[in-house]
């Protein structure tokens, strides 16, 4: 139940199924691993900055500190279909180009404010696209990055232990507990 709910909720936030994460029907085609699509150290640094813009350091760790860029590399390489891998890699380039178009500079050289305004715009574009797309159409490239940022961050040690309340062994269940605004989520395995 919980697992199912989780997948449904991840799907909700980004308006579609978890890419590479669930419910693949038997006989669907699967990628050859690697296939010449590789991540350079610069790519990972780039993804770290994208992730940090989505989930920046606040009172809790930011996505960069949680090494979300490296997590994206592992996931895209090992869990994505070939098509999704290609979309992801092309998406990095598209994101950089969109930044250049909006701010006259590439993403890595853009200021934090410029990065944020770019991603806010891209997120709107993403949400609109995902809502209207046909099932067989590819995902919007920012869909991949946002999903993996959220998942990678909240399952990382830094995200789990600084942004949430993580209890490895709760020991009991209390079905009614006082809650006041600002108290963090209790988080488990998922």
């Amino acid at each position, binding site marked *: 139940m919980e697992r199912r*709910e989780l997948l449904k909720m991840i799907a909700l936030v980004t308006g579609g199924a978890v890419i590479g994460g669930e419910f693949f029907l038997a006989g669907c085609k699967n990628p050859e691993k690697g296939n010449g699509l590789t991540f350079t150290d610069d790519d990972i640094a780039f993804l770290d900055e994208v992730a940090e813009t989505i989930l*920046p350091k606040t009172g809790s760790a930011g996505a960069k500190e949680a090494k979300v860029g490296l997590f994206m590399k592992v996931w895209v390489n*090992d869990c994505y279909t070939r098509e999704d891998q290609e979309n992801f890699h092309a998406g990095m380039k598209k994101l950089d180009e969109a930044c250049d178009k909006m701010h006259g500079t590439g993403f890595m050289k853009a200021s934090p404010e410029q990065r944020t305004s770019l991603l806010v715009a891209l997120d709107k574009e993403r949400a609109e696209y995902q809502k209207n797309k046909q099932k067989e159409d590819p995902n919007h490239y920012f869909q991949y990055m946002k999903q993996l940022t*959220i998942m990678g961050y909240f399952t990382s040690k830094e995200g789990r232990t600084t942004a949430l309340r993580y209890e490895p062994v709760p*020991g009991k*269940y209390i079905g009614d507990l006082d809650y006041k605004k600002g108290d963090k989520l209790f988080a488990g395995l998922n």
Partner: protein
Amino acid sequence: MPGDSLDVNLNTKAKKQNTYQAIVIGSGISGGWAAKELCEKGLSVLMLERGRNFEHIKDYKTAPLDPWEFKYRGKTTSEQRKNYPVIHRGWAAAEAVMDYWANEKDCPYTEEKPFTWWRSYQMGGRSILWGRQSYRWSNIDFEANLKDGWAIDWPIRYNDIAHWYDYVESFAGISGSLEGLPQLPDGKFLPPMDLNIVEKEVAARIKKKFNGNRHLIIGRVANLTAPLPGRTQCQFRNRCWEGCMFGGYFSTQSSTLPAAMATGNLTVRPFSIVTKILYDKETRKAKGVEILDAATNQTYEYYADVVFLNASALNSAWVLFNSATDIWPGGLGSSSGELGHNVMDHHYNLGASGTMEGYEDRYYYGRRANGFYIPRFANLFEDKRDYRRGFGYQGAASRQNWSRDVAEMNIGANFKEAITEPGPWKIGATGFGETLPYHENNISLDPNVKDKWGLPVLRMDAELKENELKMRKDIVREIKEMLEAAGVKNIDTWDNGHAMGHGIHEMGTARMGRDPKSSVLNGNNQVWDCLNVYVTDGACMTSSACQNPSLTYMALTARAAHHAVNELKKGNI
């Protein structure tokens, strides 16, 4: 010649070494119970498991890990999706447990009609992975076929099994509440887990709205809410299926296996694929089994006075098919023509969920490996529908977590802060419907396909029919109506269709009955054609009810084991 007598001596010695009083085929929920009961009654028992050994605590390798220690953070890879296509048809695929599922390349099956078969070939079988929901059946269920004039009558009634429910619940440890419902008899329960505040409110509103005829209760679950000997109570981590180092839930490893081992009467042999039960025409009994060592490909014979077949519903039928003789070319127990037929499951993959407004100042603590249960109400008492039988629901209410959407705030610090706090309350439930037994829903040996060891594989030919499809419409309609009545908003419903087997409650392929002409097993789970073979897993079920069936397998197994011991003493088998 001298050589001859030497051979004879060697053979006698070998035979003696391979002889036990009882053989149990399979080590899952029912096999574990059979071994425990037979051992405790003083029999020497050989338990055969087709997969690897899998030791309590030591082999639960992922259970102590933190989430970030999983390379794929709990999900599976493209490689695994390719190698385990059936497991990826639903929620069963997860990084932690992929090694627990049967290797699909080595162990194929064929689908005349779509059939999802989730198997675990290792010590403990699916008792490690199971959902742990544990409900008694009532007389309404045992009388259903007779009253409907559908298929055949169960040879037993609730009174035949009530004592055995008490017995297995007390040992296995089932937590739950006493409700006094005729359709869901109370049992010997450990204290119930809590419903959370929203579930309690929804329960009260449903009760009021439906005049006390519908109930939302805490799930009855094989998780300990108080310690039992050698086991610690549930720690509310909700990671049961990885294996629990606290022994917090019932599995073969946490419960029946240590009890059986403690007698000193149990021998366990992993990597032992039972290829056939050896039938002796002279004595008209089984004399033992033939196995194929899955690791070495060597064949061995083991002998015993009684054989318990607990290979799981479909594989138990496979063993019987494969034990064909010239007397019964269709397999041991095939004389009725019902072996492999009447395949049942619980159909699900449908339900509803929505949001509950308010309660922003309420939360909960701990990860409850359980939810609520709404017992059957359709076609009960005064309630009449245009289909037969009924259904129940399982669900939960919870506050949404970091994976939710936050309106107008999707990037940056404010977004991050918002999703690190609990979101609105959601409540959802999934239906579980009874499936009728149909003779034409069957499994058989596929004449063309062999597994890794050259053994024939099962061919599945079963589907939902009109009764189930009608019921499904009602399952969705009723849960929507109940949630609405309880004040739940933004209700989404779903029906994703159901391939047989997907409920993981396979049943019925060697049904019990009152007449050897129409059933495979008698009222004590003995094969009519071979009385010292007992089948006590899901294969034995005559109807499916809508409650999760494992507790009933436990009770039937304990009952049958005691019957077998008595019959052996009397010399009847």
